[in-house]
Every structure is written in C-alpha cells, then in structure tokens.
C-alpha cells in the first residue's frame, strides 16, 4: 500500500466517521432537541383504530 493510499483511506474513512460523529453530537446535544421527543403513546397508529 502506498503512502497516498494510506492518506486517501484515512481521509475518506476518518472524514465520513467524523461527519457522522459530529451529526450525532449535534442531534443529541442541541438544546431543545428533546422537545421533539414524545411518547409513542401520544401517536397511536391507526392500526389500533381499525
């Protein structure tokens, strides 16, 4: 494996992992994000209504 190969692999794998990590951090850590959460009991699918 060449040096360029190592660099490309590290940048590609590291970059995609870092992007996902940052996104997950933002989703979890954003203040007020929990406001979007609610119990599934609040949203009963109509399957039970039928």
């Amino acid at each position, binding site marked *: 494996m060449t040096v360029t190969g190592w660099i490309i692999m590290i940048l590609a794998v590291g970059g995609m992992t870092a992007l*996902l990590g940052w996104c997950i951090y933002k989703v979890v850590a954003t203040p007020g994000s929990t406001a979007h959460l609610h119990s599934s009991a609040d949203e009963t699918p*109509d399957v039970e209504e*039928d």
Partner: protein
Amino acid sequence: MNQQNGGKENWATRIGVILAVTGSAVGLGNFLRFPGQAAQYGGGVFIIPYVVAFLLLGLPIAWVEWSMGRFGGARGYNSAPGVFRAVCGKPWASYLGMLGPLIPVVIYMYYVFVEAWCLGYAWNYLSGDIQLGDEPEKYDSFFATFVGSGKDGAAFTADGTQALVFLAICFVLNFYLIYRGLNKGIEWFCKFAMPALVLCALVVLGRVLTLGTPNPDLPEQSLVNGLGYMWNPVHQAEHLAPGDKPIKALAQRSTVDAISGFDDSDGYLTFNIEDEPAFAWALEQAEWKPKQARQQQSQDTVGETGPTDQPPLAGRFVHDDSQAVLQINGGRAAFLGLVDNGDALMPHDVRDEAVEMLLTMIPVQAAIADRDERTLRGFDIQDADSFHAALTATGWKGRSDGLEGRFEHKKSRLILEVGARRAEISIPGFLQSLANPEMWLAAAGQIFFSLSVGFGIVITYASYVRRDDDVALSALTAASGNGFCEVALGGLITIPATFVFLGVTAVASPPGTFGMGFVALPSVFNQMGILGPVFGFLFFFLLFLAAITSSLSMLQPAIALFEEGLGIGRKASVAMLGFITFAGAMFIVYFSKDLLALDTVDFWVGNVCIYIMATVQVIIFGWVLGLKRGMEELDRGAEIRLPRFLGFLIKYVSPLYLLTIFALWLKTDLPTRVEAVADVEEGQMPVVALSLGLIAIVLIFFILIINRAVGRWNKQEAAQKEVSP
C-alpha cells in the same frame, strides 16, 4: 389529505426518523456495490468523484426531499402525489408524483427476494450447510441452485423450496411491521436493527483488519496489500501473485496485433486452463503466440504447435456456448461467438472489436512503434531503479537484465528506444485516472443509488416530521450514516477480505454485486478457519438487516397513498399492497433464469425511473416552489446553518449534473436494453417484454389510484372553502 388517520401518525423520536431514513438508504450496495466500483476504477482515486457527487448531487437532493416531504406533510399529505400537489399548488401536479409509489413498490417485488437470499445464507451458515470446501465452483453452484438462476420456475421445484421459505418469512415480517404502523413498526424495528447492523459489521471488520497474511506461501496476499488494492490511487503491480507474469504493455497500435504484442520468451502469461481446446481457440482468435512458439512455428509445420507447447498462463478463461472470456490480470476480453470444438465461428470484425476490448480494459495501456520489436530485451538501462520501478508498476516481472537502448521515465510515461525503434508506454497516473469520465459517471450513480434519493421514500418519511422540526441536520445525519456504512465499513471489509484469500484475480474484475456477495465472499469465509461460519453468518445477517430496513421503507409510500387517496384504513391498505407485491414477487421468482426478470425490472425502475423522479423533484423545488420559498422551508427549524450557495446548487448544478449523467448513462446502457426486449431465445418466454408489462400494469394501477385521489382531494378542498370562504 389524510383524513383517515387524522394526520396523527408521526415519528416518535428524532433518532427514530434518522435511523429509519438511514436504514432505508443502507443496503447491499453499501457493502457490495461500492467496494466493487471503487476497485474497478483504480481504488482510492474513485473516492474523489464519489465525494464530489455526494456534495453536489446526493446531499442537495436529500435536502430537497426532506423539505418537500415536510412541506406536504404539514398540509396533510404523505404520499408523493399529494406532496407534489401541495408544493405546486395544482391538482395536476399529483400525476407528476406517480413514480413516487411505483418505484418503491416495484423495487420491493425483487428486493424482498434478495433479502430472502441474505436471510437464507445467514441461516445456512448457522446450520453448516454452506461449508462447501475450497472449490469456488461449488459456491457458484450453491448460489445458482438457491436462487434458481438455472431455469425459469426453478424456485417452485424441490431445489428451490428453501428460497421460497425464506421469501415467505421476509414477506410476513415486512408486512407485520408495516401493519404495526410508523412508529410501532418501522421506527421500533430500525431502532434495534440499525445498531445491530453496525455491530455485526464492526465485528466482521475487526476480523478482516486482523487477517494479516494468512497464507505464508502467498506473502503478497496480505491485508495491507488488500487495503492497498481498495485505496491506492492507482493499482500497483505489487498486488500480483507470485507466479503471475502479466504482460500488460508492449502492445501494437493496431488492435489485433496488440495481443501478439504480449511477449514473452520467459513465459509470461500463466493461465489455469480448464478447457484447453477452447482456450487455444480464444488465443488463436487473439492472434497471440509466445515468442518460442513463433520461432518453433517458423521451423515446424504450421499448426503443430499446440497449446501445450505454450508457456503457462496466469489469469482466468471461461466460456460457454456463445461467449468466451479471456482475462489477463484485470484485462478482460469477451469473444462473442460460438465455440465449436475449437473451430472459430466468429466473424472477423467481431474479433477485432473483442481484441480492442481487451486492450482498452488492460489497466496499463501501451504502444510500440515497431511491430517487430515486442520485447524489452536489448536495452541498456541508464536509470535502473526508475526502470525497474516503472516495469514493476506496469506489472512486468520478466527479466530486464541485458537490455540495451534508451530508457526514459517521465512520471506516467515509460519510453524505450533502440535506434529508430521506439516503445512508449503510458501508465495511468493519479491525474490520468481522475480524468476518466466513466469513473465520474459511476461515482455519481453510486451516490445516487446508495442514498436512495429519487425513490419517493424520503418524501413520505419526511412528511411525518412536524412542521417546525429540523430537517437540515436530520438529512445530513442520515446521509452521513449511509456514507459511514459505505466507506468506513463496506470499504474496509469486502475487497480487502476477498483479496487476502482469493487474490488479485478475484477483485480485478469484480463479478458484479451478487457474484461478489453470494459467491466470492462465502468462499472467503470458508478460508477463515473455524470461526469462518460465524463471520459468514454475521455478514449475511447484517446484509439481511440492511435489506429489511430498506424493503420496509418501500412499502410506506404506497400505504400512504392508499390511505389518503382512497380514504381506506391501514388494514385494508396493507392487504391491498400485500396482494400486489406478492403477485409481482412471484413473477420475479418464477422468471429466475439468469435473474433476467430481476435485472430488467431493476434497470427500468431501480435506475431509469429514479433518475426521472429525482430530476422532477429538483426541478419542482428549484423552479416551481422557487428558491426563496424552498430555502425558507429548508431553514425552518434547522439546527445547522446551510450555506447560501446551496440554492444555486439545487436550482442549476444538481439538475444539470443529473441530466448529464442520466444522458451518458442511457447512451451506454439503453441500446443493449432495448435490443434485449426483442432478443428472445426460441422456445423461451419473452421475459424482458413481460417484465416491462408488469411495470406498465403497476404504473396504470397507480395512475388510476391517483386519479381517484385527485378527485377526492378536489372535493375536500372545495368543502373546506365552503366552510371557511
């Protein structure tokens, strides 16, 4: 509008919707297609057009779908026809969304069958039925029997029972989950399935990254070289197995003579020959003769030099009744024609074309001005290190001592001169490889198919997001989750593992997504020792999870249309969709010979239709809804600030990019596909035409449903206006 459920259905959690969308995107393509594409186009260099396509095409379209879906959902619509009506503000716009339910439903018809293969393989690893030894042919045969690719209707014979059982299990599981509803079915399942998928992948990845060099007799088949094959910007000669003596270069400009340019007195081409007469025929068609044989031939009677007099060859040669394929370390030639006891029945012009194909597919292109000088012998090397390095880079492993003449190595060019004779070999370097338009097309296609944009699924999923909830970050998270599975997991598992155990020949010309996944990889797991079956099970189970989270998402768009368009409940919608998809799946399963029905439907719906759908979506967003309103919609509730030039990308770059790759892609594939419609073997069913008929029937069905829905929505809107004038 969704009056039936009163618009009550919503995602329960933020994480839930992200996992559901990511699960929809992550599929077999992440673990099988992406690595195969990257390896085919030279390894690491592929990642550049891949990233560009991700940024210019994938992400913008994903944001468009999420914001349009939420826009429609806030107005009571969950299906693509309804969302398009809401966005355009015109009843007729619903018909533009006809592909929204069609694409996922038709894809589901064959995707659930592939999902059944994954589950079946995982089960066979648990039961030990797939430990078939070291012969690759047995894995090929197992796959052919399992999926019934030998003949139509094979799945309905005793041999095909297993596939049908797993198909039934998958079908029931999918419909049970979809019947449970959005958050108690899809979301609940994805919350478990996606982490489990990543966990399985990480375990398999851990094993792959600790493979080292399992066979000391084959030191070049190491993990590092396997990673190198996947990630090096261009393929290097170090990946060749010892004993392989490839002749990559020194070809004539004339295409036919190019093959005879493969010289070698030291016996360079080494092939495993299973069918010598046919192989000799193929070589003869290629006008290839080793130097020794040529010399011998000049002395002996013409024709007496048989294939056994030739030096051993390395590579792969296969043939059937209508085609012979000669493969030389990544170079590949398909000789279309009949093989009849070694007699050539191939027209001359076809042969020339086939030979040209071999030449163009060999990674290192070469040309030599003088046709009589086809060897490197006789050169005086001034720069031995560069010369040997260049030779190694071209794959040359023959003797290079005693060479005379002039050698010049300029980056990607190798120039050899003896007197008036001059040989010039071009070695595709990083920039040269990057300039390959086919690779850019392939990368764009990979991003497009992988992110599941244009399927009509994300629009429906996003319609269940609340009006002020974020979509910008959610879309980015889902896209990056898909990218992570593709690049960080798929990119480190499939090719390196296959390379380590099966060598360069197995990865140089990947045998397609199914061949790689269901034939090559089982052979790899077999060689992993006592824990091989465990890793085999984990790998196919993760493929199954990837498949079911995708197939599940394919059902919701049609369910949404039935519910809001016909005003029927979930139970009736699920029953109706179950009948339609079951009938379609049986069609695909029955016409299993060479997987022709599956392949046809995949091309026309899984490729052509999603390009059209994505283009329609981007145009509606950028040009009908308008950039100002569109960006405002995208920014509503956004937890990340999107760059302002995104609007420009969506309005101009993405449609152009889409239309360009679509046109190029059609130019490449369409003629063959159109010809295939009329290409029916005598006594066989016109499977391609029937498959197109199936698509047409489903399309007409959805147009009728949309027609009914439009009438219903018009009445509802009129009633609302009367109530609140």
